[in-house]
């Protein structure tokens, strides 16, 4: 039994949420209690699976899982290596906290919340684990369709408008994705990433311009998902209008874009790609730096707390692009550490922003007015920890991530990267300090006449503390985590193992094909 599960480990993070989502749809009329119980069971199982996947990947093996038992060059394969296992675990940990927050009462108001949540997890995990570009497109769609439902269910007015922008933008990006896939298949005759990496080195030189165009379109699509300049304009409005638990889960969605850039461009257009090796990298660093500046200015100028957090999400994605584009083992390793950290902290900030908004009465999360605030000690403490962590001040995980990144920057780029990262960190600190002084220090006493809001529920506070606790744990266990991200980065930048695993994994039941 255990052995069977072991061999099917890479497919379980996709199958478990899919199964749970389908069951949840069937069980919906039995009430919210049954749904919460089933969701909890599914999350526990997913956590165990993700942890097992991480342990299996830790020794450096690249596990190929052949769906339908076709050889990887013909069929669809799932691949679990160190990086994808790390991201699956990150998603699971984030999802546990955001589900806990939603279970405090919001999940009653949104139709099909639990089912959509599980389906979104299936899409996210699939996107991290797939080894095939078309399959990546399909998992993107699964993830996006569920996110449309989560974002819009129970919404009205302004959220519908933001949702329309979000949906149209993402569908356009998906269409571009398909165009790139059509071109790549026409030129190279496969969509398996390992096979593409192998074939691109031997491609006919006459086809290279078209392959280059296709890979450029692909990069645009991934950068749109990751909100790189100038493709980030859709994000602040959509994320700041999303319900808190959903926005917290969305914190990992921009990371999917960063991950796919890292995966596809280290593997397919990496060191094995011959003439096309790393041709677009030179654009990523300036774009990342520019996005970082614009996102920090946006954070400084935002009029509401949730808008501020949305801009901080863009800033963290931009920092990741800087780390990825520098393309050394040290920077990518620091980037992976920062990726995990920023996912947790951005999720925590969305939750804290929602808690603050509910305790401010009519002022909401509007930063232009000083409103009253209940339970300011608790919320202030939560906000302080999150703010220190996200802005990169010592002693929390944000500081470690940024220091690692700055230390690893190659000498040729030190001037630009150091100055921009440090100045934008200062801007972020100013934005957060201004917010804190407006919301917490200038809070007026609660008016006698108005009824005071209900105190935050224990589950909501626990969810925020859990996410902040992940960040603190990442600081305490910084050593082992950095060793792991270092190994993962080394594995990413040496794609030969991955390609060999794709070629060496034979079907188990099928006769050898021609």
């Amino acid at each position, binding site marked *: 039994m255990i052995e069977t599960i072991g061999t099917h480990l890479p497919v379980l993070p996709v199958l478990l949420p899919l199964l749970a989502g389908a069951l949840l749809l069937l069980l919906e009329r039995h009430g919210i209690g049954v749904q919460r119980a089933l969701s909890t069971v599914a999350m526990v199982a997913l956590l165990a699976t993700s942890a097992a996947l991480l342990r299996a990947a830790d020794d450096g093996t690249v596990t190929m899982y052949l769906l339908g038992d076709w050889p990887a060059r013909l069929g669809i394969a799932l691949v679990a290596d160190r990086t994808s296992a790390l991201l699956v675990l990150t998603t699971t940990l984030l999802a546990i906290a955001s589900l806990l927050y939603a279970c405090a009462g919001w999940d009653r108001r949104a139709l099909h919340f639990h089912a959509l949540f599980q389906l979104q997890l299936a899409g996210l995990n699939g996107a991290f684990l797939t080894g095939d570009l*078309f399959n990546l497109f*399909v998992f993107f*769609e699964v993830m996006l*369709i569920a996110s*449309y439902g989560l974002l*819009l269910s129970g919404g*009205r*007015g*302004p959220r*519908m*408008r933001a*949702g*329309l*922008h979000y*949906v*149209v933008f993402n*569908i*356009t990006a*998906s*269409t571009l994705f*398909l*165009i790139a*896939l*059509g*071109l790549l*298949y*026409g030129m190279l005759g496969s969509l398996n990433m390992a096979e593409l990496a192998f074939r691109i080195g031997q491609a006919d030189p006459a086809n290279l311009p078209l392959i280059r165009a296709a890979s450029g379109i692909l990069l645009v699509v991934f950068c749109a998902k990751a909100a790189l300049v100038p493709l980030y304009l859709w994000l602040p409005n959509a994320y700041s209008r999303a319900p808190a638990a959903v926005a917290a889960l969305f914190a990992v969605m921009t990371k999917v874009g960063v991950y796919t850039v890292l995966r596809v461009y280290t593997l397919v257009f990496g060191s094995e790609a011959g003439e096309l090796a790393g041709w677009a990298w030179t654009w990523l660093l300036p774009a990342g730096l520019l996005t970082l500046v614009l996102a920090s200015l946006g954070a400084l100028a935002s009029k509401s707390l949730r808008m501020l957090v949305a801009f901080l999400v863009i800033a963290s994605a931009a920092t990741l692009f800087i780390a990825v584009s520098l393309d050394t083992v040290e920077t990518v390793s620091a980037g992976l550490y920062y990726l995990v950290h920023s996912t947790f902290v951005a999720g925590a900030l969305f939750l804290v922003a929602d808690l603050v908004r509910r305790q401010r009465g009519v002022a909401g999360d509007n930063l232009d007015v000083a409103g009253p605030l209940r339970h300011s000690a608790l919320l202030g403490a939560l906000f302080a920890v999150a703010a220190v962590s996200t802005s990169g001040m010592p002693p929390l995980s944000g500081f470690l991530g940024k220091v690692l990144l700055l230390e690893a920057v190659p000498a040729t780029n030190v001037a630009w990267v150091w100055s921009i990262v440090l100045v934008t960190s200062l801007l972020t600190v100013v934005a957060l300090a201004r917010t804190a002084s407006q919301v917490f220090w200038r809070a007026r006493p609660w008016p006698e006449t108005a009824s005071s809001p209900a105190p935050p529920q224990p589950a909501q506070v626990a969810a925020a503390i859990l996410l902040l606790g992940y960040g603190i744990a990442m600081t305490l266990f910084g050593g082992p985590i950095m060793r792991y991200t270092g190994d993962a980065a080394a594995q990413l930048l040496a794609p030969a193992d991955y390609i060999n695993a794709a070629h060496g994994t034979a079907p188990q039941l099928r006769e050898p094909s*021609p």
Partner: protein
Amino acid sequence: MEFALASIIGVLTAAGIYLLLRSRSFDVILGLTLLSYATNLLIFSAGRLAIGKPPVLVDGMAPTLANHTDPLPQALVLTAIVIAFAMTAVTIVIAVRSRSDNGSDHVDAGGEGMP
């Protein structure tokens, strides 16, 4: 036939992008639809154009593209059509809802500086 197919793809794409950039949500949805048609044709053409050849292997015939049509792009197009179809439905629902909530079918309806 190549010229005809390429022209159709080009015209559909141009019309789709033009409609996508307009300010009414109905135009935008039509633009997305045209763009997805163009994409489907493009993927279809990735398997090379062949007339009257079967998409499955036949016994006694060499399994090369000279003797049969590439079946994979057809499978890809099928998936893409299904997804585009579902997405069009979702966008229409959202657009209708946005129109009734915000009182206008402008894509920025109800925002700053809008009626």
